[in-house]
């Protein structure tokens, strides 16, 4: 049933008794053409675009827990594409373009809200970096501009633009098309749309082994039994290295805890997204009124979805530095996820040394924004058995050739 105002009205009159399931809950089949391991936003998007763009139908998404429950549920929902290097900018921009039509494409309102993202500069070097990134973004066809402290003051009244701040704000880059989206809706929207194209979404199904014969993938072992497959695409974020290990691969990835938190719901007080690398914080306000705030990664490695409170303290010190009037607001709920960080702070969307096995990982602290683009490129890579030109620079072999895409500048703070 199509989601629309009219159907909302019709179903409301019938006391909402006729809404169908957003996605089915099928038993796993014994064989699939493609198995996607990981039912987060990226995995569901991959399945959706495999079906939609490449005509595949016999696809399963295997999720060990509930879909959208990993980093899809744990991020701060920021979407932007203003990356420095052309390789990264074009990939994220592809994603941005998909975001812009996503609600209608999926027929599910993912509440993509283009309220702009400001990246603040506090030092002369910050401003040089901003100039460089904005210049590159513009040439790459992305919207990007530089704003002055005066403009910031008008646009974001609560922001401390005083010259007497500990780290006075010298300016910022602004991407107006950037913004936030409703993270749960992204997972559900992709799930519903993929399901409508025949994709089996199988929750509570943990992959425990990747089966191979003659260096070719043949299937997976799961907590719900053995399933054969021609191709297996793994997109499991923080656990990528664990899954790689099952296939005898080692990935150049470090898994870290990353925390985020929200305030109590407030009347509108912040209309945009503000990020600062130097002061190390980022904040936006959700449609529900909560301030959504991210912290830096915890320095240690681990697979536990919990961080240390010192990181929260530091994040809040940064937020109060930027917004002194937020000090009396209250932290409502904090959580942690596991981020998979590559040495160059860029993702891996790649074939692997095992035929028919593909990995999509290494999104580190900024994977949410890439959800549609990541799925789109990964689907292409799996369906055609070769990367699309957008993700060719993000192959595994770059760590051998040295052709890294160093985005630490754009990704220094988690987001």
């Amino acid at each position, binding site marked *: 049933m199509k989601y629309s105002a009219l159907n909302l009205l019709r179903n409301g009159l019938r006391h909402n008794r006729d809404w169908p399931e957003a996605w089915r809950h099928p038993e796993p089949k014994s064989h699939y053409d493609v198995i996607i391991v990981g039912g987060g936003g990226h995995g569901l998007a991959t399945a959706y675009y495999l079906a939609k763009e490449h005509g595949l139908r016999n696809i399963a998404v295997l999720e060990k827990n509930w879909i959208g429950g990993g980093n899809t549920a744990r991020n701060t929902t920021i979407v932007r594409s203003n990356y420095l290097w052309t390789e990264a900018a074009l990939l994220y921009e592809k994603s941005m373009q998909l975001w812009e039509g996503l609600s*209608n494409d999926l027929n599910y309102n993912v509440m993509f809200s283009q309220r702009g993202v400001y990246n603040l500069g506090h030092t002369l070097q910050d401003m040089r*970096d901003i100039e460089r990134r904005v210049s590159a973004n513009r040439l790459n066809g992305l919207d990007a501009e530089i704003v002055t402290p005066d403009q910031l003051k008008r646009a974001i009244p609560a922001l401390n633009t005083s010259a007497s701040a500990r780290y006075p704000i010298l300016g910022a880059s602004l991407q107006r098309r950037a913004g936030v989206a409703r993270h749960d809706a992204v997972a559900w929207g992709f799930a519903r749309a993929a399901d409508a194209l025949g994709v089996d979404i199988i929750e509570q199904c943990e992959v425990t082994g990747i089966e191979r014969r003659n260096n070719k993938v043949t299937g997976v072992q799961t907590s719900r039994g053995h399933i054969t497959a021609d191709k297996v695409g793994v997109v499991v974020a923080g656990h990528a290295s664990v899954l790689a290990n099952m296939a005898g691969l080692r990935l150049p990835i470090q898994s870290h805890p990353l925390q985020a938190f929200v305030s109590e719901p407030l009347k509108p007080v912040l209309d945009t997204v503000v990020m600062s690398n130097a002061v190390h914080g980022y904040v936006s306000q959700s449609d529900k009124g909560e301030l959504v705030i991210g912290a830096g990664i915890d320095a240690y490695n681990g697979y536990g979805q919990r961080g240390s409170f010192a990181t929260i303290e530091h994040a809040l010190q940064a937020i109060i530095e930027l917004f002194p009037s937020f000090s009396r607001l209250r932290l409502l709920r904090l959580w942690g996820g596991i981020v998979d960080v590559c040495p160059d702070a860029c993702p891996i969307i790649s074939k692997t040394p095992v035929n028919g096995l593909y990995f999509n990982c290494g999104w580190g602290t900024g994977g949410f924004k890439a959800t549609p683009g990541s799925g789109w490129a990964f689907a292409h890579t799996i369906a055609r058995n070769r990367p699309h030109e957008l993700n060719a620079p993000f192959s595994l072999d770059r760590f051998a050739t040295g052709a890294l895409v160093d985005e630490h500048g754009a990704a220094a703070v988690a987001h």
Partner: protein
Amino acid sequence: MQKNRLQSGGRIDRTQVLNFRFNGRAYQGCAGDTLASALLANGVYLIGRSFKLHRPRGIVGSGAEEPNAIVQIGSGAATLPNQCATQVLLYEGLDANSLRGWPSVQFDVGSITNWFSRFLAAGFYYKTFMAPRKLWSFYEKLIRDSAGWGHAPTKADPDFYEHRNAHCDVLIAGAGPAGLMAALAAANSGARVIIADEQSEFGGRLLSQTDEIDSMAATDWVAQAINTLAQHENVRMLPRSTVFGYFDHNFVTIAEHCTDHLGAHKHTTVRERLWRVRARQVILAQGAFERPLVFCNNDRPGVMLASAVSTYVNRYGVCPGREVVVFANNDSAYRCALDLDAAGASVKAVIDSRATGAGDLQQEVEALGITVMTGHVVTNTLGSQQIRAVQIAKFSIEGTVPATLPAQDLVTIQCDLLAMSGGWSPAVHLHSQSGGRITWSEELHCFVPDGTTQNCVSAGAGNGAWELHDCLRQGLEAGKAAIEYCGLEISDLAEPKTEGIETNSLQPLWRVPAVKAPDRCPKQFLDFQNDTSVADVRLAVREGYRNVEHVKRYTALGFGTDQGKLGNINGMAVLAEYLGEPIANVGTTTFRPAYTPTSFGTCAGETVGQLFDPVRKTAIHEWHEAAGAKFETVGQWLRPWYFPDGDEDLDAAVKRECLATRRSVGIMDASTLGKIDVQGPDAVKFLERIYTHDVGKMKVGRCAYGIMLGEDGMLKDDGVMARLGEQHFYLTTTTGGAASVMSWLELWLQTEWPDLDVYLTSVTDHYSTISVAGPTSRQLLQAIDCDTSLDAADFPFMSTQTATLCNLPVRLFRVSFSGELAFEINVASDHALTLWCALMDAGKNFDITPYGTESMHVLRAEKGFVIVGQDTDGSVTPTDLHMSWMLASDKDFLGKRSLRRPDALRADRKQWVGLIPADKTTVIAEGTQLIEDTAARAPVPMCGHISSSYDSPTLGHPIALALLKGGLERAGEKVYASLANGKAVPMTVTSPVFYDPQGERQRD
């Protein structure tokens, strides 16, 4: 007039009358009241409106579980949004306002949404607002404007906060019967005990009940216990202190609320204090939350938890109703009937869903002439802004709960208060935060702690022990066990005597059937704040949102400021019913910090504002300030940026500074450079592995420019290395890299090469560095009594020696970052200002000119010296920077292997070049990208970017440094700088060394 205030009883002080305002009207309360009890005392029932449907709402609870009575306190910079009226202590002058309702909470235009609620079911917004696409921002603004509770302050917080660290043997969360008993047991042993409770008074439920302990009133027992604990120096008691977070390694965070309850004050003391406690053993005794019952219109003002009603009667001397109906599925609410009767209210009936009724308490209630209707339920309430009546019906569970109730059986009872109890849920929040498991108890019908991963134990109602004697016993046992764990002597404290009573077990009743099915009947609320009803959960299940986390997110169940303390368990049980699964399989959502909302300021502590990050100033900073220097922020440092003469701007000052340095002598404070002292038998071996050049071949007394690479072969940092002895080196790093290089060296030394006998000491702050550059710099040093020969023959370029200047011991380095004859002087920081002043004094004869970082940048750019971090970005190899000569071939060093990777050998890598604008006038902004094809459309291929750009005073035209694809081979070619306005400025590629390419001046 406080019309609901009882003549006597309670823990309030009737002699201390406090004036306060609510929604602009003046009221009076008593010292000891909460805002909620004072409002109830005044007969104010309507406190707010709900989130989505704007339904009238009143006080339902008496503590952290309250979802409805959320108010804004005060105004201006010190205003507090989203305060829970049940947790706000009343003070003179308190000014509170409802958060929703326009024009007023009584007449709320927004309540019209209630009529359309069937179109606003769970997740409705995911299904609409999609077309036309452009209108989404309009819809979204409507959503945003209607969402949210309180208003954030608009001015900086006038208050301040602090952090305190504490260690203890036993931390006890909660000072009710179990917590106090545990503290008493632990205190005697000498253990360091911290006991914290979120309320203003210790005692927990004992303050709200009429029990007896050891033949005295429970409140007297509490007073005695507090008195005993106060006599132990090893016990720290923290009232108004919420244990809100439980992290790894028994790290527990407590927010102590110090001043909010005092009302108007001058913000001169700490408002809130964060205790960061590392505890050997934690005892969790936070008690339990009473559950509401779920029936139609269960959200009307005047519908309250039975335990809250008892609390208002017994603790605050307020009787919240005159004609009361009590509705329960368990025994505990019968106490409420007794309390109300004692308070003079008319208890019209106790409605008990159980056919069996209650145990001993039922007889007590009936003995007072109160009607007990067993096998009955309240299925609906009537009224508008306050409850007017309840509709009751016969009820029995035969196998399953009946789907609907027959309409003709309904009986209406008039009342102005409904006290309800759906049983109790242990507050397992902290246990769960600690990593502990919880399990569904089929006996108690609640989740109870089950196994921990840290050193903690739950006791009392928080562990499913409802009866007082069980709480006391568990507290005692937990206290003793903690002491045993700590290896201390266990006291022989005995369990206090209490009277036990016979009770009947609770009847699980998660949803009272209505006359119509849940989709059609009046709303049965689960989460009051977010208007999540039974129908919403049912819809979520129907739509395939089956996991408890999906249901939570789809329906917003438990997302409110109470984080589901009131309604979550009911919601999960209803979910289980619709899934047809046992509650144990459905589980709960994850309990996350904070237990109750905690101020950002508390978490941030004192390190905000100017203390956010230490400001580092050099030992000569005062002089710079007096000289009128403008400063630049570099990491934590403040560095002089330029020294304007009068009203000179940056460009004029820099021009003057640079020309003076090239002509006579300039002086600069370079103290912020990182400095590392390296000593040990393996110093050479160690540094050989870190730096790319031949360290071993350096003679004592010589300096070398050194670079280090990351494992990826990219330039990481640079600086001067001086060999002070056979086993003794001195390194400088970039200002920004000082700490990271030190960590980098220690990382390798400690984790990879622990066999090397090398010692690293950061001496950045120990020595100040004064750089004197220019043709007359040698004469200048000689003019301040240099005790050693500075001639080129005795003290050649790239060497170091100790000396005395102005009677101060110094170390001189003949290195140059300006291309001029130059000396870097290291002097103990205590003497730096003296030496600087002596140099300035003597320098008058040499036209000495102080210069800042901007001139330093220009001077080095004219010479083509790289600044790591400005001209490099982690993607630049030494070869890209014309530094292949620095890569020793006959040894290994970090990053060497990566330099042989295909990408490092690519011919079209971005390489270091100089650029001069073709028109010789345009200064291009640093960061500007370079292109070759000015007609190309996006994505325009970029061939590099400008990393440094200045109007060179020495050369008289602009210069730039850039990383350019294949730049090493492109001298003389033309590229374009692409400006923001779309224009492209032609630039000629040159060598990056614009000035004195032979380096004769610096070697002079």
